[in-house]
């Protein structure tokens, strides 16, 4: 699952439409839209709101390992309205703390330093983007998954020539909609990375048949991984149906693994 955090409804709207996200009813505190793969939350403006939204989503599923994306608008000293950036460095203007999102994939757009401020910015340093959420988002979301799966994507809404006061909801929606191709390219990359983190599904089958203690679950997980590595074929819990308890299953599984061939391709 990819969790997308936006500050404003107008930032979220193009995504809700593009990915056919359905609004969740009777949600307390935040508006959430989702489909099978994406859950989007409208956090409100500011770092605290972004951090709270991340915690809210994770709290609903504390064990979950999700990809995270903060998507919204930002100001920039040099870029034109409508250009997009991914943050390669997020700085919190108040604390001076930095985060460096690793991007082990081809970026769909240029990258930039992004400073999260408390008030809309009117002075822009060269080569730097400004927003009001990313540091709160990054500090919180990176507690829940590794940094490669926590990314920040911003579309430039204001610059030296066009101040932040001139940014309307309509403009925001337009410029984000115009970047949907880049956003989708990034989302697909995040899905790919996220898939690589998934655990072997067979463990659930075994857990349905027998009761495993926590330490036995770890052992079972490791044995299933070893089985898969050596046999290259899936294993069925049914094959152990004559085993009375979890201990017997683990012993039988270990014995079978030892008997499997151990070779590394052709000579």
């Amino acid at each position, binding site marked *: 699952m990819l969790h997308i955090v936006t500050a404003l409804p107008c930032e979220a709207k193009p995504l809700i439409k593009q990915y056919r996200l359905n609004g969740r009813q009777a949600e307390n505190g935040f508006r959430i839209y989702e489909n099978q793969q994406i859950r989007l939350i409208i956090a409100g403006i500011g770092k605290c709101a972004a951090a709270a939204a991340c915690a809210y989503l994770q709290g609903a599923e504390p064990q979950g390992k999700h990809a995270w994306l903060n998507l919204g608008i930002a100001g920039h000293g040099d870029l034109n309205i409508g250009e997009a950036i991914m943050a390669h460095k997020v700085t919190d203007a108040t604390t001076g703390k*930095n985060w460096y999102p690793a991007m082990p994939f081809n970026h769909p757009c240029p990258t930039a330093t992004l400073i999260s401020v408390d008030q809309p910015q009117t002075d822009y340093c060269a080569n730097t983007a400004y927003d009001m959420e990313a540091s709160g988002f990054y500090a919180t979301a990176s507690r829940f998954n590794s940094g490669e799966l926590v990314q920040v994507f911003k579309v430039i809404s204001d610059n030296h020539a066009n101040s932040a006061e001139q940014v309307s909801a309509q403009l925001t929606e337009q410029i984000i909609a115009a970047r949907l191709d880049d956003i989708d390219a990034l989302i697909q990359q995040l899905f790919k990375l996220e898939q690589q983190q998934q655990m072997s599904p067979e463990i659930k089958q075994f857990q349905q048949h027998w009761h495993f203690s926590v330490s036995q679950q770890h052992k079972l997980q490791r044995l299933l991984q070893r089985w898969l590595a050596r046999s290259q074929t899936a294993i069925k819990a049914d094959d152990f149906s004559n085993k009375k308890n979890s201990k017997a299953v683990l012993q039988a599984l270990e014995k079978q693994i030892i008997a499997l061939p151990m070779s590394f391709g052709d000579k």
Partner: protein
Amino acid sequence: MIQTLYIEQAIFDHPRSVAIRQRFPQASVVTCERYGEVFNPKAQNFRLQKQQPSLILAEKFNKFVLEAPFSYNIGGQRNYYFSHMLNCIYDCRYCFLQGMYRSANYVLFVNYEDFDTAIEQTIKESNQPAYFFSGYDCDSLALEPVTGFIKHTLPLFKKFDNAYIELRTKSTQIRSLLEINAMQNCIVAFSLSPDNLAAALEHKAPSLSKRLDALEKLQQTGWPIGLRFDPIIYCDDYQQIYDEFFKQVFARINLKQLHSVSLGTFRMPQGFYRNIVKLYPEEKLFAGPLAESQPMVSYESELEQQMLNFCRDKLLELIPEEKLFICHDDI
């Protein structure tokens, strides 16, 4: 190749930083105070980063030269290592770096002159020949075209005949060595594995035949050669595989140029091993007959001994005993 270059602010204009920036004009350049801000955070996944690592340019302030672990021994009593780089462009599944670091990004320390000073001081203080190992936290030669570190450092060793340097590598980047006269106190040590194991486990590294070609070129130009058969990996037909492999390698070796051969089976401190298994749970290497609960994870002791004895005996049919060094219990 490099999409993002992180550079410590203090060395942003260092001539080596400037040269490397110019080499990767397309890379995003990101400044940081200290490289640890990028390299050390907990929330990183080595496996994911390995798909496209970035390069971090940094300055090192201390611990330039350290005492080498026990198993780094090719005949000397005083063994040291230094790491001008952390991490490696290759991706060997048995590499302990994956378990030691959270980040797969490469770190290059650009203040080579400070390494020189520390090496020189260590040599002068040593009352016995000093051996320096350069390929501990990286491959010694793989990124040489970018770093130029070996080209910079070898002249220092020319000044001392009681100091040796080992360049441990799987690389074919030997041009900077071929351009100069062979040095008898510089051992170019190739890490070699049988073809099928190299293909399965030494991802992104040159094939065995390419490594042997590079080795042969160096041998012909007079460089002392080392052979590193470490780690030996278990598979059902390991005896046949390693027997054929040793014959294949030694068909290319001129024994007069052979400095040393070292041999060790797969082993890894348990903490690193656990980290790596989390990253690569589906890896066959870790599904083998390993004693996972030992502080130093290795093959079950009887098997380990059998493997070592077998390989040792086969090697002693090919080389004199004084050239063979067995590595165990340490990395």
